[in-house]
């Protein structure tokens, strides 16, 4: 697999891909190929991350991408994004009402007691991160037994279909601004280039498919001191959102299916109001496909930070829309970081020429001075 000349690279590429495939099957003859169902369900948070960063809600296809890319989240999201390019955009989704969400988890850190109650749901938040050595060699019948037992013991009634939003209660109390500014025509980042300044809907859309770690890093910088949002989570909810689309003929909105999403609303400290009106709390919003709580929280914090930056001018990186939006996309940044692995023989040759000439000049100058 010589990687010296550009010519003859075809053979090298073929060999490289064969080696990748050999590593994927390196368990050897006793190995069992990963089933997509196992990835989708047992690695559900990984799948969630890929549908979110891939910007396409297709958990099964995301599972395939994970399998194919051997667990690399950036590559898997990349593959899903590329697949998305092959599909036409048929229509723009109307605004979906998240209070219709079939909630599997909802919590509020702002209030002990919220209408409908706190629902802890499935979370690692209070799980001890102790290694469960028994999982190392898990018997299939025990594995299935746990699932059967949980389903058998879960009451089927008693839960409401959905829950009202916590921020609505705050709004009714006059603690939040009355009319949330809502763009009439949302910006489609997949069909229009970003020309700054960009509207908030473009920022939210960019963040919804951003790389989780990048969002987290920037949001964390704001939390730690390079910013002053001081958020409180009014509500974090995870659940299945029914998606309503206009019927192609009648135009009437009908339910087309449902998507698992995570939504987070943070309440931040009030600002000094210019128009002498009563000061109210401010809001940050985050929502993305899949079960991605860290991402939704980071997004909501950055949304609030960016609104401040757009209003008063950015004082920190996390408040600068250009800085944030242009650096959070995993597919973009990973592609560019990896492009440095491509040959740069010509430009580097040119760099060496300049350095050698400058060195020679410097030596000549030193010689003259002596």
């Amino acid at each position, binding site marked *: 697999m010589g990687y010296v000349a550009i010519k003859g690279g075809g053979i090298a590429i073929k060999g490289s891909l064969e080696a990748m495939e050999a590593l994927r099957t390196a368990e050897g003859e006793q190995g069992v190929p990963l089933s997509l169902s196992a990835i989708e369900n047992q690695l559900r948070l990984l799948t969630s991350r890929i549908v979110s960063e891939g910007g396409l809600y297709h958990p099964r296809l995301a599972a395939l991408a994970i399998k194919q890319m051997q667990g690399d989240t950036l590559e898997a999201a990349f593959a899903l994004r590329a697949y998305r390019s092959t599909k036409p955009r048929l229509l723009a989704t109307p605004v979906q009402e998240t209070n219709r969400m079939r909630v599997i988890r909802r919590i509020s850190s702002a209030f*002990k007691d919220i209408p409908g109650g706190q629902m802890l749901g499935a979370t690692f938040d209070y799980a001890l991160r102790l290694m469960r050595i028994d999982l190392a060699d898990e018997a299939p019948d025990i594995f299935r037994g746990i699932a059967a037992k949980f389903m058998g013991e879960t009451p089927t009634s008693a839960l409401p279909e959905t829950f009202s939003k916590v921020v609505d209660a705050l709004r009714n109390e006059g603690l939040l601004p009355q009319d949330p500014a809502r763009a009439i025509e949302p910006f489609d980042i997949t069909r229009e280039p970003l020309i700054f300044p960009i509207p908030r809907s473009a920022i939210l859309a960019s963040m919804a498919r951003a790389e989780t770690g990048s969002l987290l890093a920037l949001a964390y910088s704001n939390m730690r*001191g390079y910013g002053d949002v001081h958020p409180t989570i009014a509500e974090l909810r995870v659940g299945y959102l029914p998606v309503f689309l206009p019927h192609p003929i009648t135009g009437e909105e009908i339910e087309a299916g449902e998507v698992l999403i995570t939504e987070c609303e943070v309440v931040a400290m009030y600002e000094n109001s210019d128009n002498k009106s009563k000061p109210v709390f401010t809001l940050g919003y985050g929502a993305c496909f899949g079960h991605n709580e860290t991402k939704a929280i980071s997004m909501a914090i950055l949304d609030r930070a960016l609104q401040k930056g757009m209003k008063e001018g950015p004082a920190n990186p996390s408040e600068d829309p250009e800085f944030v939006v242009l650096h959070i996309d995993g597919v973009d940044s990973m592609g560019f970081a990896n492009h440095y692995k491509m040959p740069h023989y010509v430009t580097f040759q040119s760099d060496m020429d300049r350095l050698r000439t400058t060195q020679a000049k410097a030596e000549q100058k030193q010689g003259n001075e002596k």
Partner: protein
Amino acid sequence: MNPYYELPQDEAGYSFGFLDEYAKREVRRNILKAICIPGYQTPYASREMPMGRGFGTGGLQLTLSLIGRGDTLKVIDQGADDSVNAVNLRHFIELTCPGVDTTERTQDATLIQSRHRFPEMRMTSAQTLVLQVPYPDPLVVVEPSEARRKIMHGEGDYSRLLTKLYEDIVHFDEITISHRYPTRINGHYVLDPSPIPRFDVPKLHQSPALILFGAGREKKIYAVPPYTNAEPLVFEDVPFRTEDFSDAQGRRRSCHRCGATDSFLDEFTNNDGERIYQCSDSDYCHQRLSTQHSAVNEASR
């Protein structure tokens, strides 16, 4: 990779207090340093704990380093012993510290780990309070760089913090810092007292109990030793105010369960949309209720 390698299934046990002895000793040494320099943020090599950073790992490392057989531990979160995080931390300490008793009664505890509250009941010199801290540095609101903040602390330069308070007064006619109110300890260092309400800040002053602060994520330990001065930053003409629980008539609101008018109150909206108030310290509320019940029983006998 060695294909014959197997996970060591018999090494799943944990030592007393989860952390290894060297780690606990390091934490104890840093606690001593923190006590010797009141309010100073002592850096330490915070370890990873099996729960999320920010869930109280700093307080937990202090507690695990200090606790021994014969100790009685109380864990509070937002005043309550039964909230999920408190239950979880207590469960973890019970799991890794055999021989340690736990309690909900403030007066029975030798060690109290808390998030966001001081117990209502006055603590004694036999007790230690460990507070979990998200942000150890009060200067972070005016200076993001830690290196520069360290110099400011060394020089006792809190002018920018005072300017922030002054600007608040200009903008809002009020200091807007609600919780984690910056407090000067022993005349020099200003510390972040953890996100306790202003209501609890006066309890730092001349406290008979040792108060320790642990910030796991930010890797700092600091302390207010017993009987030490603690003064919230204020101006001569703008006094420090704690949270106001008076109603429209100016009367102090009371807890709807136990009737206390001296405790920090949580605000609820009940099913009828009515606003009700209740002690945030659940142990204080329970104890008051049970004393009232026994007094009633005594009277009816």
